Structure formats: structure tokens, C-alpha cells
């Protein structure tokens, strides 16, 4: 097992190097603008441009630039933004904090909702609650996050809402303390979780329906176990495997920056926002750092998922 984890981590490093290199070439071959010019202000002199170029290390050959970046990244030093000259590490960590808050809360919301809805739907297949839930799920999946976010703000935000219940957009940045931050995240949590709840509820429903047909469920019933135990101990254990797979990919992507729509609507300074702004401004240094972050979290959550498999299913063995 330990050997397996070490091997996977080494592969993660290789993956990260490859992805960083690809990102690097993309932004060099298809530049969104010369970062030096973006920084130099109006009508700069050639000397000024050269000076900035040198200070950013952009006069070095590409392989040295890439090498320097990777070497520094390995020491958790991502350099400075080409635009604001701010040090990127604290910027990234702050953004990561906000995004983690958002994603972890949303995951809890959507897993709880999916567990309840999916289980009831599976056990009462074809009943009215099942049909209402599955119809509602389709609506939730179809609703775009930015639209749902705006509707949520219009209805419940404390500044512009019809019912001034929850803090509105931008409240996270100004929130102090854990409780305040959690309170500020309530709307974003539910908006981000809506579509995921629906997807996971459907996934759990079909997976539970399938596992309820297994022979070992018949055995469990024949043993005289209570139906509750049959469902929650025997059927659910097998039914959650596909959910774990999906969760690994989704959490990795979301923490890495895919929560960008929710972060934009609610003005949360997370990784999604950071990369979005960086792309708009052609801030190659920041872009590279966020790409590296995304790839890192996807790789790590894939590893965690594979380890979870071994925990759930004793037949899975890693050498």
C-alpha cells in the first residue's frame, strides 16, 4: 500500500510538470498580450520595457524560465503577479481558503440532500415523492449556476432581496470570524450544491436500485435482518462506490477553480475568481500558478478516491 501511494505521488509530480509545461507553451505560443507591455504603462521607452523584461526573468531562454518556475513551485514559491507585482503565494492561499470554504460546505449540503432524496426515491420507486424528486432534479441540473445565483440573490440577499434573510454578494470578503463566514456562505453553498445534489441523488437512486437486486440482499433478508439494516448496511455500502468516484473528480475540479461561476456571482475571492481575472489581464504568472493548483487537486483527489475504494471494497488491493 505504501509503495503504491509513493508511486502514485511520483506520477502526480510527473503529471504536474507536464501540465505546467503545456500551459507554459500555450501562453507563449498563443500570447494574450505581452505582459511586459501591460505593465509598462502608456508609451514606454525601450529601456523601460527591457528593464521590466529582465526583472520578470522573461529575457531568459524558455527552458530556463520553465525550469525556474518549476523549481520555485516545488518550494511553494509561485513568484509575483505580472500585473500587480503582488507575491502570489499568499494570494493563492487566501483564494484557496475561500474556495475550500465554499466547496466543503457545498459538498456537505449536496451529499446530505442526495442521500435523503436518492434513498427515498430508490425505496419508493415510481411513487409520487420519487417522481417529484426526479422531476425536480432535472430542473436543478438544467438551471445554470449564474442564473440560479442571481435568482437566489434577488430572493434572499440582505441588500437587494425580496426577503432579506441571508448576506448577499461580496459579504464573504468582509466577514470576520468563522460564524460570519459560514453565514455569508449559505446562499453560495446552496446554489453551488443545487445541480450537484440533483446529479448525486439520481446517481444514488440508480445505484441503490441496482444493489437492492443483488443476491446478498436476499441473503440478508433471509437472515431475518430488519429492512433498515438491509438497506443501510448491506445495500448502501455497495451503492456508494459510484458516488465516491464522482465526488473525487468533482471536488478536485471545484477546489482547483471550477467553482468560478458561483464565485463570480457571489463575489467570493476564490481560486476561480483569481484565475478568471488573471486570464482577463494576461497575467501569465498567476495563470500558471492556478493551472498548477487545479492539476494538483485533481491528481490528489483521484488518489484519495482510489485509496477510498480499497477501504470500501476489500477485494481492491494495491501493490
Amino acid at each position, binding site marked *: 500500500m505504501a509503495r503504491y501511494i509513493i508511486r502514485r505521488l511520483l506520477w502526480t509530480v510527473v503529471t504536474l510538470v507536464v501540465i505546467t509545461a503545456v500551459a507554459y507553451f500555450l501562453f507563449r505560443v498563443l500570447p494574450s498580450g505581452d505582459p511586459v507591455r501591460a505593465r509598462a504603462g502608456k508609451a514606454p521607452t525601450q529601456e523601460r520595457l527591457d528593464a521590466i523584461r529582465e526583472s520578470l526573468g522573461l529575457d531568459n531562454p524558455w527552458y530556463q524560465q520553465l525550469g525556474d518556475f518549476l523549481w520555485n513551485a516545488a518550494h511553494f514559491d509561485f513568484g509575483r503577479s505580472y500585473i500587480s507585482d503582488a507575491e502570489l503565494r499568499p494570494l493563492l492561499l487566501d483564494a484557496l481558503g475561500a474556495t475550500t470554504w465554499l466547496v466543503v460546505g457545498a459538498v456537505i449540503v449536496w451529499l446530505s440532500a442526495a442521500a435523503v432524496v436518492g434513498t427515498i426515491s430508490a425505496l419508493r420507486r415510481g411513487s409520487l415523492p420519487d417522481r417529484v424528486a426526479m422531476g425536480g432534479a432535472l430542473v436543478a441540473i438544467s438551471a445554470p449556476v449564474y442564473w440560479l445565483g442571481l435568482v437566489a440573490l434577488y430572493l434572499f440577499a440582505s441588500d437587494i432581496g425580496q426577503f432579506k434573510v441571508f448576506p448577499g454578494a461580496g459579504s464573504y470578503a468582509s466577514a470576520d470570524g468563522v460564524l460570519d463566514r459560514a453565514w455569508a456562505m449559505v446562499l453560495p453553498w446552496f446554489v453551488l450544491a443545487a445541480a450537484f445534489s440533483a446529479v448525486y441523488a439520481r446517481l444514488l437512486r440508480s445505484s441503490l436500485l441496482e444493489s437492492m437486486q443483488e443476491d446478498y440482499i436476499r441473503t440478508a433478508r433471509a437472515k431475518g435482518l*430488519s429492512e433498515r439494516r438491509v438497506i443501510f448496511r448491506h445495500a448502501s*455500502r455497495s451503492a456508494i462506490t459510484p458516488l465516491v468516484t464522482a465526488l473525487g473528480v468533482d471536488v478536485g475540479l471545484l477546489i482547483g477553480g471550477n467553482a468560478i461561476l458561483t464565485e463570480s456571482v457571489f463575489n467570493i475571492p476564490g481560486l476561480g475568481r483569481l484565475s478568471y481575472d488573471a486570464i482577463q489581464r494576461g497575467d501569465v504568472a498567476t495563470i500558471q500558478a492556478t493551472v498548477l493548483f487545479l492539476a494538483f487537486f485533481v491528481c490528489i483527489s483521484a488518489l484519495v478516491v482510489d485509496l477510498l475504494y480499497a477501504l470500501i471494497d476489500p477485494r481492491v488491493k494495491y501493490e
Partner: protein
Amino acid sequence: MTDPQDHTPAPERATATGTSPAGGDAGRRAGAPLLEVRDLRVGFGSEDGLVQAVGGISYTVEAGRTLGIVGESGSGKSVSSMTLMGLTRSPSTKIEGEVLFEGRDLLTMSTDELRKVRGNEIAMIFQDPLSSLHPFYRIGDQIIEGVRAHNDVTKKQAKARAVEMLGLVGIPDPGRRVDAYPHEFSGGMRQRVMIAMALANDPKLLIADEPTTALDVTVQKQILELMDRLQRELGTAIVMITHDLGVVAETADDIAVMYAGRIVERASVHDLFSHPRHPYTWGLLRSIPRLDLPRDVELVPVDGRPPSLIGLPDDCSFRERCPYAAGCCRPGMPDLLGADGAPDHQVRCTMPPERRATIWQVLADGGTPQEAATKAGIPQPEEVA
């Protein structure tokens, strides 16, 4: 409030205590049988209509005895047994009749009452031991769970019981293997685990649904011997469901042959194999190899297919496939009646006894159904056409 169960007849209690550890003779006592199935009917609702999987079967099982239920796929043998355990209950299932277990009707019991019987007084083992065991849990935990569902014991006590049972069914090193997962066992060992699990609560009745079908022949033999030994040691009655006449020949005391949801012949093992009386039973016996016949005698499969179980006519279900139907069948469903001179040998066929004897004589000597029919003077389809 009076509990209807209070009226459990006194003689039955008396005979229950009379069940000697030897077990073998206990079944032959007079009095109420352990299990009595009366006119059990099971239908499943489907888009095409009601599928009458079991069309009215009756049988009894005495304590400590083995009843073999034989039939091909879809004959209703598994459905009828699952129904005893309440495992076919659903809003779309129509169940009628009576299933008396020690005088209590299992069909009218609430789910909770029935749950106390399941795995405790009646246990069940299934065809495929790999898929019947939960792949994610240790076998010990799966046995412990069953023990603790019915007994107020600690986990430690239940585990001791699990180890004891695993030893009893012949799992080597049970103290260590109790913590193994199902995939770490061979097929035969897994079925032993299933048997250990089923017998952990000392059930009075074990329903074995094709327990050896998924196993190699040599392992089949071991499992059957194991069940035989455990029955002698524990006095458990067994309902053995199988499509394999060889299996029931070895293990059963009595045999019921099922076809299209009904019992077509019922007799003791000896009577059934020496004087089978139903054409379907003849077909089954003629389709398996026999060592006492010359090697060039061909096996004869039963022609045709079983009828659809939707809208089954009130008529002999086997007539379509019966090579001897011409000239002696009467319309309508024949009753399951005792044969002439052998009231315990029941058969659902109206064929006259002499003709039956003539036909079986030919078949037993290795003749084909055509030869037998000709000898009995029955016109053959070819001749008719």
C-alpha cells in the same frame, strides 16, 4: 387480548420434545407436520397479465426429513420456497393459500413477525454462494449479524458461535478464517460458509435452493454429504430445491416433481425412481444418463418448451409436450391423486394404470417414447399426420 398462537395444539408440543437427537426417526412420528403448505398460489403482476408462477401446490415436511422439489427453470420451485420466507412479498405479488409452520400461518404473519422466523426457525441457502455473500464484509461478521438478529448475545459470544459453526461445516482453521472475506474462499468453501450461516441459529427447517448447482461435481458431492451429516446431527428438516434428479436421489426422503407451477407427481424417493408414474417424470428420468443401460442407448430430451405462465388454461399443462396424450387424455386439469395400490404415491395424470405400467416398462429398458407409445397402442403424431 388472546394470542391465537396460544392454541398451538398440545400434541405438537409433546412431539416436539419427542424429537430425539438422533433425528432420523423423529419425522416418522404421527401428528402435525413441521411445515404444511396448502394450495399455495403465487402470481406476479406484469404488463402482459398475471404470471401464475405457482398454481396451487400442497405438501408437508416432517421434522428431520428431507423433501426434494424437482423441476426445470420456471416451474415455480424457487418462487414457492421464497414465498414461504416472505421474500416474494410486494404490492404486485398475489399470494394465496396457507403455509403452516408449526401451526402458524406464515402468509398472514406481519413482516415483523415473519422476520423473527426468518433465519431463526427457517433458514435458506442459495445457488451461487459468491453472489449470495456480501463481498465487502468478513464472513464472520455476516454470521454474527444473523446470530445477533435473533439472540440477545454479545458480539464475542456470537463470534464464538460463528467459529463453532465454521468448524462444524468443515472450514479448516475456523478461528482464523472467520475474519476472511468471501472472495478469499473457494466455491465449495463459500457454500459451507452459507450453510454455517444458515444453521447458526439452529433452525428447524432449512430451505436449500439449488445449493450445488454452481459447484463442481466433486464439490457437489461433499456439500450434499455435509448437509446429510448435519441433518443427522442437528435434526433439521430440509426442503431441497433442484433441477437435478441425482441430487434428490441422494438426499431426499420424499420428492415432489413440479411442472408449470404445479406438483405433477409426489412420492417417496424409492417409489419415484422405481415406479415413476407421470409422463413428465419419465421424460426427466429418460433424459439423464444411466449406468445400468447399454452405452448406445440414447438420451431422450423432453421435446418442446414449458407453457407461458400467463393465462394458463385449466388443463393439463404437460399435454402439449406429452408423447402419450393421444387417446387417453380428458379435458380439464387432472387432480393430484393417489395411485392404485399406492395412496402415498400421488400423480396428476389420468392415464390408466395398465398403460402406465406398459410404457414405463419400455422406457426403463431403454426404449424410446415412440416405442413405448406404440407398445401401449397410442397413435403417434407421425401416424396421425
